[in-house]
């Protein structure tokens, strides 16, 4: 047996636990069962107490088996309630959770009585977590469970994937979805229960949910999500025990995990808050830019193809602007307009771009009038909403319709004939 210092043991143990709960938590969160971990953690208490009353000692293995038994009983109870009564899932979980925990509290007070000769110190760990009390055998148990869980996930990866995302499809393919589901639940139960004495009831629930929800911000692929979530869980375990010296370790680990979650929530690419706000900001900016061009085009339209000088005043009156100056600046930087002295003029490039935008807008208006029967004086606003999103292929189709009506914008030049003979290159 390698001799480890206590802090090393604690760190390895919490890292293992974080990693495992990250993996099984991913499945739980994807299946919409995030709170089942919470329920299992609470429901374990009567099992722990019973196991203690029966065996009379505090071996982790015995207590864990008791916890597992009552956890499974709780899952069965929820299933029965859902199957045969009108109680909804959330209430069912709440009922089972609180009743089991109440029974646990009752049993705990029995354990505490001097007549049974117990002291509740070891059992109290199940409520609040005591990573400091970890033994070598506990670390080994954690490692063993981790190996089993990982092996199971590796073996049934494809099956779990399908069950998570499309249960009906899995069923129609003849897979035993019920058993696969139960296997996932069982893994969740086992991990929850070995984790209980380390981080405590509430915080175990957090360990199931947090790493998985964190990983969800980083990826859309299950394989990556499992890895990332495992990593986050382990990191939370290690960092939490490192940084949280002097505080309740369970709380420290969970706060670390929450911090990781918060960081991901803000800064994850694509799904993070910052990235999403950035995308939205860019979209708004583009819409404002496009509105400016179309406004200028419509103001210039009577004199096209000459590009007239337009007083800024009439641009201001044409529609509502949030910050016209900045929009104008951007357009000038892209050499789409000339701007100065309360006047503005489209450059040739600007006319070309503006013509395209106006075309999209009017094509959509036409479509709305013809196919959606919207009155002509109502289509402007509706077209405003979509014109920025219309794909090229749709525009071509709309254009064919418009051509038949002779309403194509004047500037759109036909493609000139080729000045030379066209022949396939040899």
């Amino acid at each position: 047996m390698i001799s480890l210092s206590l802090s090393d043991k604690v760190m390895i143990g919490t890292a293992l636990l974080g990693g495992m709960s990250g993996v099984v938590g991913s499945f739980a969160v994807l299946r919409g069962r995030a709170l089942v971990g919470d329920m299992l953690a609470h429901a374990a208490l009567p099992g722990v107490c019973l196991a203690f009353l029966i065996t009379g000692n505090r071996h982790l293995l015995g207590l864990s088996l008791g916890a597992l038994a009552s956890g499974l009983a709780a899952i069965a109870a929820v299933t029965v309630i859902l199957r045969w009564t009108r109680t909804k899932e959330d209430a069912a979980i709440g009922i089972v959770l609180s009743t089991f925990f109440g029974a646990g509290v009752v049993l705990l007070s029995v354990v505490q009585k001097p007549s049974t000769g117990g002291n509740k110190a070891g059992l109290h760990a199940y409520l609040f977590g005591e990573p400091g009390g970890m033994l070598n055998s506990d670390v080994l148990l954690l490692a063993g469970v981790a190996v089993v869980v990982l092996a199971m996930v590796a073996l049934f990866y494809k099956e779990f994937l399908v069950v998570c995302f499309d249960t009906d499809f899995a069923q129609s393919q003849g897979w035993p979805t019920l058993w696969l589901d139960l296997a996932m639940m069982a893994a969740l139960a086992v991990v929850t229960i070995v984790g209980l004495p380390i981080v405590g009831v509430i915080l175990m629930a957090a360990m199931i949910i947090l790493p998985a929800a964190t990983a969800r911000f980083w990826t859309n692929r299950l394989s990556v999500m499992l890895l990332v979530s495992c990593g986050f869980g382990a990191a939370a375990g290690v960092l939490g025990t490192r940084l949280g010296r002097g505080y309740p370790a369970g709380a420290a680990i969970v706060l670390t995990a929450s911090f990781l979650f918060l960081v991901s929530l803000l800064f994850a690419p694509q799904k993070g808050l910052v990235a999403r706000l950035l995308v939205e900001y860019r979209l708004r900016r583009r819409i404002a830019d496009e509105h400016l061009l179309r406004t200028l085009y419509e103001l210039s339209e009577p004199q096209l193809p000459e590009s007239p000088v337009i007083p800024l005043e009439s641009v201001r009156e044409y529609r509502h602007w949030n910050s016209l100056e900045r929009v104008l600046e951007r357009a000038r930087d892209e050499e789409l307009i000339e701007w100065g002295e309360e006047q503005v003029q489209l450059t040739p490039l600007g006319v070309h771009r503006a013509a395209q935008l106006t075309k999209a807008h009017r094509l959509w208006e036409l479509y709305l009038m013809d196919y959606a029967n919207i009155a002509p004086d109502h289509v402007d606003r509706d077209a405003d909403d979509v014109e920025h999103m219309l794909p090229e292929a749709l525009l071509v189709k709309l254009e064919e319709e418009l051509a038949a009506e002779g309403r194509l914008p004047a500037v759109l030049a036909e493609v000139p004939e080729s000045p030379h003979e066209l022949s396939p290159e040899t």
Partner: protein
Amino acid sequence: MLTGITVNAACALVGCFLILRKMSMMGDALSHAVLPGLVVAFVLTGSRSMVPMFVGAVIAGLLTTFMTQTLHQYLRVPSDASMGIVFTAMFAVGVVLVKQFTEGLHFDIGCVYEGALEYVPFGERVAGLPRQLFTSLVVLLLNFAVLIMLWKELKLSAFDPALATTMGFSATKMHYLLMVLVSVTTVASFEAVGSILVVAMLIVPASTAHLLSDRLGWMVVLSVLIGAVAAVLGFWWATYWDTSISGMMTVAAGCLYAIAVLVSPRYGLISSVLRNIRMSLLVLRDDVLAMLYRIEELKSSKKFSIAETAAAVGGGWLASVSIFQLQRSGNIEQASGSLQLTDQGREAARRLVRSHRLWETYLVEQLGMPLDHVHEPAHRVEHYIDEQIQEQLAAELETSDQDPHGRQIPH
């Protein structure tokens, strides 16, 4: 015990709306998430008096609700996961704060979990009542008052939030109001009964009442009663076995729920089993009658004893019971070892066979179903076709005297 009753009643009142809005776990979440609010209030004021505690709890509760909503709506975290994240994080903050600020002071985390109803009579007193009783009484009255004043609004937003919003009172505001009530109730009950019992009392009596009633008014009344009964039972059991009162109350509530699952008149297991049996008996009785009628019609000389008849309609003890029922009601009689229809029974059987054959004819004539496919559906439907439908069917059919198999349709 009185404290237990008032706490339970207060919880049951708001609990009804929680389970109707499918937010039961929000009770669990809030009861944990108010911890940091309590600690901060405690640290800031240095006292454990009621008002700062409530303010702290309400702020923490609203914060939790707000963060959960935000995570779910704007960041697309699944709703259960966002709840789990927020309340566990809040709880962790609370645990750390407790450790940081209240060391050496009297702030027992264990009491947060398990409560200490046992010590209520020995605690300090406000206005002549034990403090916890006074607190929970105030909260009970508060919940009651809000419920009375906003009954219509709460009801509507519980069942149809979208309609509530279009009618001009925001379902979101109701949601937050409900959360405030839950937070306050939680805190009031905390010290006396512990957080898990709060969860139990929020959800379990309300769910039990939900099994027993379809009307919100009755459901609320029932849930309060059930909460009170659970408190009394729990108290008795706990003193009898000398264990934790709050734990026993939870167990009592769970037992009441289990009983309701079994015996609820409309949704209970037993009543639905009974309903099934009654239905099966009706179908079997009809089958026996129709079979005997057909035998008479074919002028077959074959005689059916009770056992043979029972086997012919599918067997089992239900078949025997149905034959016994028919005999007792005078529809069939036993003559020289075989069963025969009485006049009354023949009349009933004729109606059945008429239904059956009219339906077969209808299926073939109007829906164009093939001949060999119509017996099964007619067999299933014949029990539900009454006189009026028979007439309608006969009126719509071209041939209402012969079924598609060429047999006569009796009148």
